[in-house]
């Protein structure tokens, strides 16, 4: 049984369609949702967002935002979403290296937190990208 998934950021509506299963990383850990889930609201961490529809799985990079789960629909209001195949590996790697360099210098605790955040974000980006390269999930929803 399918449920309605709406996946969007402030700037764009990425997806509005019936799907069978999603998996996301909330601030309290990973969770999966099937139709008829108990209603709940949680904040999103930086992580992979998986969508399963029939036999296909689609992967997204998601950072920050909120998810509302209702029995018949799920709404994701994310701060950042990228489709796994759209991740810019080179840029992510560069940003990660820059953060690593900066963390070696003596810096204020606030900027340290900032760079660690960057490190985490780009690390997750690269992992999702790598996983996609090796697994070659079937194509995107538009195909």
């Amino acid at each position, binding site marked *: 049984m399918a449920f309605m998934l*709406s996946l*969007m*950021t*402030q*700037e*764009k*509506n990425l997806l*509005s369609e019936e799907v069978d299963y999603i998996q996301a990383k*909330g*601030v*309290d850990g990973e969770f999966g949702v099937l139709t008829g889930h*108990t*209603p*709940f*609201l*949680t*904040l999103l961490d930086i992580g992979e967002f998986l969508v399963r529809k029939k036999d296909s799985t689609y992967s997204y990079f998601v950072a920050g935002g*909120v998810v*509302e789960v*209702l*029995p018949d629909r799920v*709404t994701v*209001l994310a701060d950042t979403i990228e489709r796994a195949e759209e991740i810019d590996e080179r840029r992510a790697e560069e940003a990660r290296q820059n953060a690593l360099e900066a963390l070696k210098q003596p810096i204020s605790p606030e900027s340290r937190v900032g760079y660690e955040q960057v490190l985490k974000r780009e690390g997750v980006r690269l992992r999702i990208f790598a996983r996609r390269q090796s697994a070659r999930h079937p194509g995107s929803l538009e195909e």
Partner: protein
Amino acid sequence: MPSLRSIRSRIKSVKNTRQITKAMEMVASAKMRKAQQRVMDTRPYAEKIYELMHRIAYLERSFPNPYFEVRPVKTAGVVLVSTDRGLCGAINANLFRSLTRFMKERPEVNFEFVTIGRNGRDFVRRSGFPLQGVIHGVKDRGTIEEILPATQVVIEEFYEKRHWEEVWIFYTQFESIMSQKPRHEKLLPIDPRILTEEVPSSLTGEYLFEPGRREILEVLIPRYFETVIFQRVLENFASEYSARMIAMKNATANAKEVIYGLTLTYNKLRQANITREISEISSGAEAISQG
């Protein structure tokens, strides 16, 4: 009777005007297309978060929260979204008219303003209402950061000082190129009675917040009115460009008509001059031949 020369120079000047209005029309139409796209892209999120916040307010109605609490209204804040520039038809005038009507219907309420856009600021100053914050020069391709000073005022006046009991937003909604409507919405408090969709009774009592409701609402509430205010600013941009495009299109058409009329007068006058000259010459020649 105007001289040929003066008509010629008027034709020239109207042609110049036409060229300018034509150029402005084209600029507005290019900007309008982009702004329209952006409005369409940003509407779903704003709608969803609006709906979500009101649903939460409904489910949370038994828990006290200053953002959900409905208080008797002595002072209301208005976020007034208008255009920076003119030459965009009557959209600002229509908006101010609907605002004036709104205020007249509530004579017991004091109104205070935050304005986004120069026209609204001028309107508030002219009318002598208190102005708590002013933003202008927001770019149509800008980001949400540009309107954060406005949300700052809203938080301060509504939440910290508890000076405003209500916050409204006034803006011009983009419906189509031909139609833009002045609109207003209540931003705060988040009043579940506005909810368009019935909350299923099955939700009550089993709706979970993870981590806690306080942590989530802390993130969600500022995001709610930032997003909504920003989206309304984008609506206003699309409305502005559409209205300007139409206004300039009409101006160009008018100029064309004026040029047509002037050219006609010019040609008639020229013809009349020629006829007069010929008759002068021929009557002169006749006078000579008779003499």
